[in-house]
């Protein structure tokens, strides 16, 4: 049997992250609780190094490892944003974890392994790698949610996440097995060729439904959203921050790999399914968020509605639609970082700051950060000229261009309903009296980076062209 050694250079970022994650695991054994800074610095260095390795790659697409791995423009952009988002997550989480006595190396190690899972997922070129990447990511996330052992709420939400996640994995595998039965291949490019030649597509579309269920669960689209509010609420806020931002980028990558790269010729089948998911997500997400008094739960429902918008671009089945969705998911990740980061900023030892009333009168306590929160909330609501407005505008334009005017109208109506709960936060900050006028206690790095985060939302909102050009160049 002849076997050529695969070209390993395209997978250099993956190998680097894996090696460094193992190194961090070992180094963490030998540092005391006071020296945990070493673990933190090494983890951040891993992300920065991986970013350089990813940006230094060749621009043309490469498929290697016997067709199980692909590196192209889409994977590079998604990976670069995943590193960036996780870098901010680690930075925001440090003080919060320390105050709660869970500032341990495992948070960073599992976080890095989760990053590796996301990288594998967005670079997958085989159904097998999609599944393995998803499991690696999910396993790290389950453990991170459960890490706050003494909290009943965290254990309960980890259990829910684990059981529902296992069920969704089972659905995904079932769908994959059906597709394998029809085409006889796991390779995504070969799958796409084989599907185009299949006449009787009943079994393939049957498998497709289960595939979509698996992806919709990961994204948190209605009706597979039941875990989202409970897990976001129950997990420690730093874990929620991780869970709510970077994995959404990876789930978008998974959606593109499976539906567009693999089953692009079945767009007529999956388009209508995504329409249903999108409408339900926008409706339930926006309406139920109004009734929430807990900010984490409110943001969880807001995530669900954003996922609805995200699907709006993909379901058109055009390259322009995909780049609009890519733009949306990147923008969402940046805004989500800002919103959850703000909860972490206000939190201190023994105080979670995750209720809406905790934001009352923030303007009196810190006018600067009240303004930052205003930027993020306006952006999420889609008020021009903030970044979220452009994201919504682009996906709506693509929906109209695909002759789905009714869908675009519904999306606008739901986002107007949704604007209510974002503006309520702004009203609480500016027009209500603070319950306890204590000054903020966050460290300087957190203040600077969170301000930078919100200012990026503002600046990219005024000049959205560069980010959008990047997204257009991918497809």
């Amino acid at each position, binding site marked *: 049997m002849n076997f050529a050694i695969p070209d390993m250079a395209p997978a250099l970022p993956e190998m680097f992250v894996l090696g460094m994650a193992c190194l961090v695991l070992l180094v963490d054994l030998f540092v005391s609780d006071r020296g945990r800074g070493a673990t933190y610095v090494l983890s951040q260095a891993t992300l920065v190094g991986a970013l350089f390795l990813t940006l230094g790659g060749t621009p043309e697409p490469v498929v290697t*490892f016997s067709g199980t791995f692909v590196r192209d423009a889409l994977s590079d952009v998604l990976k670069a944003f995943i590193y960036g988002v996780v870098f901010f997550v680690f930075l925001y989480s440090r003080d919060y974890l320390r105050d709660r006595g869970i500032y341990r190396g495992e948070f960073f190690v*599992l976080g890095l392994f989760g990053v590796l899972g996301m990288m594998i997922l967005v670079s997958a070129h085989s159904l097998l790698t999609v599944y393995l990447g998803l499991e690696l990511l999910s396993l790290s996330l389950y453990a991170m949610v459960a890490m706050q052992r003494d909290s009943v709420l965290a254990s309960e939400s980890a259990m829910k996440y684990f059981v529902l996640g296992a069920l969704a994995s089972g659905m995904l595998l079932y769908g994959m097995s059906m597709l394998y039965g029809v085409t006889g291949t796991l390779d995504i490019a070969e799958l796409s060729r084989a599907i185009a030649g299949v006449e009787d597509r009943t079994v393939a579309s049957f498998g497709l439904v289960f595939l979509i269920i698996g992806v919709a669960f990961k994204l948190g689209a209605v009706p597979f959203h039941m875990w989202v509010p409970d897990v976001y609420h129950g997990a420690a806020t730093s874990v929620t921050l991780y869970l709510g931002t970077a994995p959404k980028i990876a789930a978008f990558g998974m959606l593109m790999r499976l539906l567009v790269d693999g089953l692009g010729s079945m767009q007529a089948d999956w388009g209508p399914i995504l329409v249903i998911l999108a409408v339900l997500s926008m409706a339930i997400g926006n309406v139920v968020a109004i009734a929430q008094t807990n900010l984490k739960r409110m943001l969880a429902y807001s995530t669900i509605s954003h996922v609805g918008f995200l699907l709006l671009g993909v379901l058109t089945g055009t390259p322009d639609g995909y780049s609009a969705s890519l733009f949306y998911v990147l923008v969402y990740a940046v805004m989500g970082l800002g919103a959850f980061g703000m909860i972490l900023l206000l939190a201190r030892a023994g105080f979670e700051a995750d209720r809406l009333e905790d934001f009352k009168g923030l303007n009196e306590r810190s006018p600067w950060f009240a303004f930052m929160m205003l930027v993020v909330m306006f952006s999420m609501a889609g008020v021009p000229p903030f970044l979220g407005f452009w994201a919504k505008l682009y996906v709506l334009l693509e929906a109209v261009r695909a002759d789905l005017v009714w869908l675009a109208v519904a999306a606008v109506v739901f986002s107007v309903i949704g604007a209510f709960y974002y503006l309520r936060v702004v009203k609480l900050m500016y027009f209500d009296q603070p319950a306890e006028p204590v000054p903020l206690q966050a460290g300087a790095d957190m203040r600077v980076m969170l301000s930078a985060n919100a200012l990026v939302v503002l600046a990219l909102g005024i000049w959205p062209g560069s980010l959008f050009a990047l997204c257009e160049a991918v497809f």
Partner: protein
Amino acid sequence: MTAEQFFFYAFAAMTVASAAMVITVRNPVYAVLSLVLTFVASAGLWLLLEAEFLAIALVLVYVGAVMVLFLFVVMMLDINLARLKEGFIRYLPLGVAVAVAMALMMALVVGPEHFGLERVPAPERHGPEYSNTEALGRVLYTVYVYPFEIASVILTVAIVAAIALTLRRRPHTKYQNPDEQIAVRREDRVRLVSMKPERRE
């Protein structure tokens, strides 16, 4: 019906029946034993597919090691059977209705006419010189090296997660130090105090 078909249907029926028992029997120990039977029956199905190595690995690793460990865990746990059964009757009609509707819909959408040998040709039969173990060994570290490595990373994460979730360092736990106990002197433990006698006024 050929002998192969007979064995296929026998093992398939056993798999489905024992899998149903896993979730319907009341005693968790019986559920674990039913799961063992499910694994053995699916190992039989794999043997029919000429995947001998996988079939034997399934029996040795899952049935022999994992499930025995699992059985011990289930026996150690103090499971309240009455609480497990709580709400069973209440959710039964809804659950059965959903399950029946799902099964009917799936059968209507993908009926037997979409499968069968004329649609999906049977895999080629190998002669007695064919070795499944050798075939696996040839591809596992070459063609499938990337998925194989990812699987090993997943196992590493599982170990890290399991230890992070269960290891407890308890600095305040009280324990005996035999060295100190042996080396103890009377002066360390007993103190002679001379007290003034109390005077009754």
